């Protein structure tokens, strides 16, 4: 809501010419969600400060949006927009300082063209990544950065710091560049949903950053954060249910792809935490993945120093290959992927004509939408499209549509089911759907000690992670109950001490208890 720009230029009041705002006047600019005002708390020859204050009317903010985009979540009403330096402030700034941002100044052209001493202050900058990230993004642009975290609530010291940072930037920077940088980086640092900005404005922001962004060392993070969150617009029903359950929506988001922060190479990190695979199209996994990985690990320099793990290829690729290998070996032709997520395995299956019928099931409507997009469902040739089916289903409800397949794949699925509900999953899959083969992969908890920065389980949605013995015990129980045989296979580097990172069980219908 507040941004101050100061200069010690002589005379400092030339700032008024550069900003095209007179130091002795209070100027108002109507915005669709409130009023922006520019005034000067100080205007001396040695130091001059312009303040941009945006008064956001939260009621108007909501009412100004059409009924067609109903963000029926309380977060729309009680939020930090009236106080924080968010994308609203960035948009207002771009509007109010339009001419300055373009670098035009008829009366002081030489000042507009070159660097001048500037001091920019933002008392409450939402900054996911903390002061560290603010420094990382502004320092390469020539700023001396002072960033301090704001505590969440002094009454509850145990809650720690808030996501806000009190930010001051000092440096010799061209004013137009400074404004453009803020314009792009404020929402990047904020990195929450852009539901208060129309989506076309997001596009405008991207264009504004293009010129200087190319040279920025963190350009991929910057672009990813812009693009990555746009799908959130469609999640209102889910958000609503999260809220009435007193849950944070992000904590409930479906695990689409996951890999723990690893010790090793960037490649091992390639799919980072959950959100990577949720990126909009256009971001390939490679260029966004490594940044997400380092971010998740909370340490920037690990990638170089750490010893490389045995495999340079991401674990989820190895896992897919292992599953595809088993399916080929079994001669399966009709395969159902139970918990297909964003459809990576489905894509591989469709590329192989021997799989005549490929079905993806997920409980998350969002995951299915991502899968449809990843697989380019709307543009898929008819012959291929005929082999594929995608639908919403849950593994705790029996479902006729699950029946009749040669093989079912549950890749990294069981660990997302609460232990008391596993019995239902077993009956639904092994008891009722009864495919000829079932392939189950799950993390090997013993291997977790090999992930240096892992604290707890590999994903926040994991309800458990099994040791090899626990997995075998579970599989043996399933075999006894439902009449399957099972064999076990390692996936990834099979560590002599702790075993492989992923364990895989291949069940075959018929016969008694498991053998090895």
């Amino acid at each position, binding site marked *: 809501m507040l941004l101050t720009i100061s200069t010690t230029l002589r005379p400092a009041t030339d700032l008024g010419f550069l900003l095209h705002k007179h130091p002795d006047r209070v100027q108002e600019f109507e915005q669709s969600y409130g009023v922006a005002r520019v005034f000067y708390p100080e205007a001396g020859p040695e130091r001059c400060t312009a303040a941009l204050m945006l008064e956001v009317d939260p009621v108007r903010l909501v009412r100004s949006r059409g009924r067609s985009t109903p963000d029926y979540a309380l977060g729309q009403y009680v939020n930090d927009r009236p106080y924080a330096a968010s994308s609203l402030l960035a948009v207002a700034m771009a509007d109010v300082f339009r001419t300055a941002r373009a670098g035009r100044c008829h009366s002081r052209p030489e000042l507009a063209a070159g660097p001048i001493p500037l001091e920019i202050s933002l008392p409450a900058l939402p900054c996911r990544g903390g002061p560290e990230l603010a420094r990382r993004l502004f320092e390469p642009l020539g700023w001396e950065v002072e960033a301090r975290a704001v505590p969440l609530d002094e009454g509850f010291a145990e809650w720690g710091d808030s996501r806000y940072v009190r930010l001051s930037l000092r440096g010799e920077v061209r004013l137009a560049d400074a404004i453009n940088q803020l314009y792009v980086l404020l929402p990047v640092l904020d990195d929450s949903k852009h539901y208060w900005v129309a989506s076309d404005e997001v596009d405008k922001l991207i264009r504004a950053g293009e010129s200087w962004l190319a040279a920025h060392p963190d350009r991929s993070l910057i672009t990813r954060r812009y693009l990555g969150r746009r799908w959130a617009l469609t999640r209102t029903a889910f958000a609503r249910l999260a809220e009435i359950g007193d849950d944070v929506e992000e904590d409930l988001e479906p695990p689409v792809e996951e890999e723990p922060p690893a010790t090793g190479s960037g490649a091992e990190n390639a799919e980072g935490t959950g959100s990577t695979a949720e990126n909009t199209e256009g971001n390939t996994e490679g260029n966004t993945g490594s940044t997400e990985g380092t971010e998740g690990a909370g340490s920037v320099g690990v990638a170089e120093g750490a010893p490389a793990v045995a495999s340079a290829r991401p674990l989820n690729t190895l896992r897919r290959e292992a599953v595809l290998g088993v399916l080929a070996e079994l001669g399966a032709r009709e395969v159902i992927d139970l918990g297909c997520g964003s459809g990576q395995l489905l894509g591989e299956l469709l590329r192989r004509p021997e799989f005549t019928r490929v079905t993806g099931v997920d409980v998350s409507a969002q995951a299915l939408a991502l899968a449809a997009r990843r697989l380019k469902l709307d543009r898929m040739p008819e012959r291929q499209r005929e082999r594929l089916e995608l639908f919403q289903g849950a593994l705790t*409800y029996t479902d006729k549509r699950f029946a009749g397949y040669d093989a079912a794949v549950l890749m990294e699925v069981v660990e997302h089911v609460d232990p008391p509900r596993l019995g239902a999953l077993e009956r639904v899959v092994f008891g009722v759907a009864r495919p000829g083969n079932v392939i189950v992969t799950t993390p090997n908890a013993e291997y977790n000690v090999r992930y240096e920065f892992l604290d707890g389980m590999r994903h926040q949605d994991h309800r458990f992670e099994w040791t090899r013995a626990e997995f075998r015990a579970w599989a043996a129980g399933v075999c006894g109950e439902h009449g399957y045989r099972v064999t076990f296979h390692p996936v990834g580097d099979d560590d002599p001490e702790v075993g492989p990172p992923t364990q895989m069980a291949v069940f075959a219908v018929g016969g008694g208890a498991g053998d090895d």
Partner: protein
Amino acid sequence: MTEISVPEMSLVVLVGVSGSGKSTFARRLFTPTQVVSSDFCRGLVADDENDQAATPDAFDVLNYIVATRLRRGLLTVVDATNVQWDARKKLIDVAKAHDVLVDAVVLDVPEEVAIERNAARPDRAFGPHVVRRQSKELRRSMGKISRDGFRRVHVLRGVEEIETATLVTEKAWSDRRELAGPFDIIGDVHGCRVELETLLRTLGWRIDPDGTGATHPEGRTAVFVGDLVDRGPDSPGVLRLVMGMVGAGTALCVSGNHEQKLVHALNGRKVRVAHGLQESLDQLAAEPEEFRAAALTFMDGLISHYRLDGGKLVVAHAGLKEAYHGRASGRVRSFALYGETTGETDEYGLPVRYPWAREYRGRAMVVYGHTPVPETEWVNNTICLDTGAVFGGRLTALRYPEREIVSVPAERVWYESVRPFGSPGHREPEVLSIEDVQGTRHIEVRHGGGHVKVREENSAAALEIMSRFAVDPRWLVYLPPTMAPPETSRLDGYLEHPAEAFAEFAAAGVTRVVCEEKHMGSRAVAVLARSPQAAAARFGVTDGTAGAVYTRTGRSFFDDTTELVDRLRRVCESLMDELGSDWLALDCELLPWSAKAEGLIRNQYASVGAAARVALPEAVAVLEAAAGRGLDVGDLLDRTRRRLVNASRFRDAYARYCWPVSGLDGVRLAPFQILACEGRATAALEPHSWHLERLSALDDPLVAPTRHVFVDLASQESMDAATGWWEALTAEGGEGMVVKPLPPEGARAQPGIKVRGREYLRIIYGPDYTESLDVLRRRFLGRKRSLALREHALGLEALSRLAEGEPLWRVHEPVFAILALESEPVDPRL
């Protein structure tokens, strides 16, 4: 005059050449919707009833309509020439696929009449050769049409017979819906005459001294599920008694597989003599020939199943899936007598039975026998009464409609079972099907009447939450409905005030209300059983847990609720005693709010507070500096200073509901309603005063009382007192209160109205909401109110179904629907 008699639920195939008068005939004897004509279908797909090129498509449509009507159990008439065998064959196949009988009605008119009629119709441009060809085909068919597979072929010869024929419909043999009981349904007897007599006497029957009949003083009717004979010591004695009862109209009996086989054997057909058949044959051989003949006639005439009591009760020997109720076909009889098998055999060489009951979703109760079980058990409104009397188990009866089980022990083991009998049964947990919850749904509710619709996209959102986060559905017997606020207050400074709530109830005809303190925590439903055994018996939960405490979205409170559950079970022990129940379900608020919602509070509320408290002082300072320079920022400065105060009040508002907890230390639970206990959906039956009184007796530091006042809506004084109470409550930082009609409310009044305090509303409407009250007063309650009513009706429906012992899927359906409705877009601030 010829009378044509067709089954009530059947397919009637008209057969006759073009111009034989089929359409006129059908119009005269059937309703327009019963008749599906090929001409009409041709018109549907081609815009031309005579476009012969469209015939294949037209018959696709015709078959589809016929199949759909038959699936729904409707009498259907096909108006097409059907002179060719393969055309009739297709229709017979459709009827067989839906297990309905099929009759043919042949309209046989002289060729010239048909030709003449066609010539008179401009739309029938074809020449007389068409009729001649059809006529030839018909004549060729007539010789063997009776072997096509029709139940009966009615032939009407000549114009006059066709024009004067009349129609009657026959009820299916299985249709005894007019009999409303009460019934005593009796399991497999297998020749255990003594046990049968003991059981009948226990049920209050008087048995004739000669053992040839029995009557019940209250006029009850016995229904035998079949397998009267074989294995046991006195099959003739059992037959004599049952035959007498059936003959006198005091009993009904369906056929068991043992009767069927005995009939074959007595008729001299080659059967494998096993499974106790020899005993029956030997015993019958000792009987007079006359009795043997009567017994054979009796058993041969037994039908596969009965539908009773308006269709609410179905009795069949081996059970019957819903699609077969009231139907007639070989496979229906086979299912009813033998059940469905998977084709596999178990380790004793006996066929593995397909668990049809687990998938049963019909509304009719199905009572059956056939498979000996150690204990009777309700599975989806079905129950097996064969408790192995002949194997030394018990002979069991079900009293209907009381749903009461009565059984007597066997005198001894009369016959050794191939499969060990009496070992504890492997209890098959009830499994929910995706079809129980997915898609657009219309759910019948008894409270408020009618049905509640759930839209497909809401079901989809709920499915994700339910399956990823909710507790075991066997515990998830209820979810709390949403609640509407009152009309907006006009009082200065208030958005909500008790006056509007009182006025709304008064207008709805309510005279007394209770105002309950609204605790600010997280809503919690606690389902508690006395012991893990009681939990297993009532809820079928066998993992050793004895209760669950879950949130508004069905998610378990805390990672492990065992400690909380155990504590609550102890606290509620005396209440369970009082209620005479081994379990109960409570609606509560769990405090503090931060215990469950800390993540949300930090992420959303505390963050807003932090941003406000760091940004606003800076803004004030900058504005003061500008004012010091003589700039005109007066209004803005005042406003910003006020907002700084609002921000600090906002912080106080949420902080009040946060305190640290460790384990159960610091946690409090405030129950305010007893949702249900054994046999009773108390939430639907008892006034709030009843609930509050019983709950106030719970004495434990864990339990927080729910303060409340009763209000007489005719007394201004009483209302003023309650308003004062609310003001005091909210001034100390309370969330507010909930106003509820005291006696269980009528269908149209809201079940409750929440009146929230001025400071609390900052959490909902934002720190500065008091600055823009006039704008906020324009809020629309319609949707919220309607939602509250619908969810409330669903909640009571779930509890009623639970209390009545309905199957899991029936309880789950309305619970799931509540969660689905909660995802509907409604202003979340209401």
